[in-house]
């Protein structure tokens, strides 16, 4: 992790990482001392399939500017098939968010295995950069949850 001193807009990113692959991948990025931005807040879930669409919306409500879901590569799920279901669910949900006019760059799904620390960091760097360019999440925000 790296604490960036630069002033200006820093996005809040929520990353849902599955316990078996992506969370371990993030860990590996840490132990390998690969930099990725501190704006990424990781939430560990037992499986990418655990991610309820409501979680994604809640994250946006509570001030996230981007939400990324990471799981095991298709075929590698610890529970055999969880990420296959998650894949369909998230495809449809993100397509719907796009349909409702929420910028599609704010949501993403990436498959990161426990051995892919470098990929995890690269993904996060790129995602944070994309969301920083987009700026604050205005279209799916809850004003009551914003600090004055």
């Amino acid at each position, binding site marked *: 992790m790296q604490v960036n001193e630069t002033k200006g807009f820093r996005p809040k990113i929520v990353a849902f990482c599955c316990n078996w692959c992506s969370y371990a991948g993030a860990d590996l990025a840490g132990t390998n001392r690969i930099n990725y931005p501190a704006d990424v807040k990781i939430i560990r879930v037992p499986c990418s399939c655990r991610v309820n*669409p*409501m979680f994604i*919306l809640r994250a*946006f*409500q509570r001030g996230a500017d981007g939400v990324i879901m990471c799981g095991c590569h*298709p*075929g590698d799920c610890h529970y055999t*098939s969880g990420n*296959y*279901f998650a*894949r*369909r*669910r*998230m*495809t*449809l*949900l*993100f*397509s*719907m*968010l*796009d*349909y*409702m*006019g*929420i*910028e*599609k*760059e704010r949501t*993403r*799904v990436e498959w990161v295995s426990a051995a892919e620390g470098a990929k995890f960091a690269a993904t996060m760097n790129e995602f944070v950069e994309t969301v920083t360019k987009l700026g604050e999440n205005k*279209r*799916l*925000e*809850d*004003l*009551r949850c914003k600090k004055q």
Partner: protein
Amino acid sequence: MQEAVISRAKELLADGTVNRVVGWKAGEFAYDTTPAVFTSAEELDAGFIYNDFCAPNLSKYIIKESRKEGKLLVFLKPCDSYSFNQLLKEHRILRENVYIIGVECTGKVDADTVKSKGIKGITGMESDGENVTVHTLYGDKTIPKSETLGDKCKTCKSKKHVIFDEMIGNDGEVNNDGARFEMVKKLEKMTSEERYEFWRGELSKCIRCNACRNVCPACSCENCVFDNPASGIQQRAATDSFEENMFHLIRAFHVAGRCTDCGECTRVCPQNIPLHLLNRKYIKDINEFYGEYQAGEDLDTRAPLNAYTFGDCEPNIVYKRGGKE
């Protein structure tokens, strides 16, 4: 049609096949019909109607009715039969307690469409199958029935009954011309900004009356997420644009893959929000990504969100797909 329906219902009541009939009766206005249960021939004579205004989908009422004592008779229009089949697939209905008569449907008159033509002070409506006569305070007006149909009937997906014990009238054909996705396609072609404006404009009208949820045959959970006090969005008006979005997003997602596109949500919406466009988007996406699927068409296929294949498209198809940013 109405006479044939009533006389058949009376026969079935008289020979003891069924002990009650689920059908339609006149509501507050003649053009506004409401679902009702009839238990005798006298009640049927007094109240039962079946005409061009009987839009309500009776399938959802069968969930509770079929668990009561004795067999019931229900009249299903083609699109209702899809909902019925879907509920049957989800084990919500006791099939052995239901006797289904499929009734022919030629499209139902939508009072909101009539009102949108600038006709004010409506006191009643009549339809002869070809033309609709609208009685107003300022005299009668006649318009062709084809112009009074709501969006769901104009782009009817099917006139074929997928489940019935007997039929009154003719069974129709499935309509696969894809006309029902026209508006979805139009929205998809817009820029993200325009889509956002469109949906803000529509959804900000929502008063959270929950009519869409209550009428939806797919929304038949005994405990609804929106009734959970911990959800933060329990039975109350939305206080923020976020809540309006969330309610409709989550509701549409909960019925994704199960929605038969009966269009009831839009029909009952007191604010005329085109809610079916959300459901149709899911149906269109499912068709495109995972192969053609029509909920309620049969009893043995797996719902798209309960299934997967190894070769499913990756979620980034959303970003790669054509269309403007």
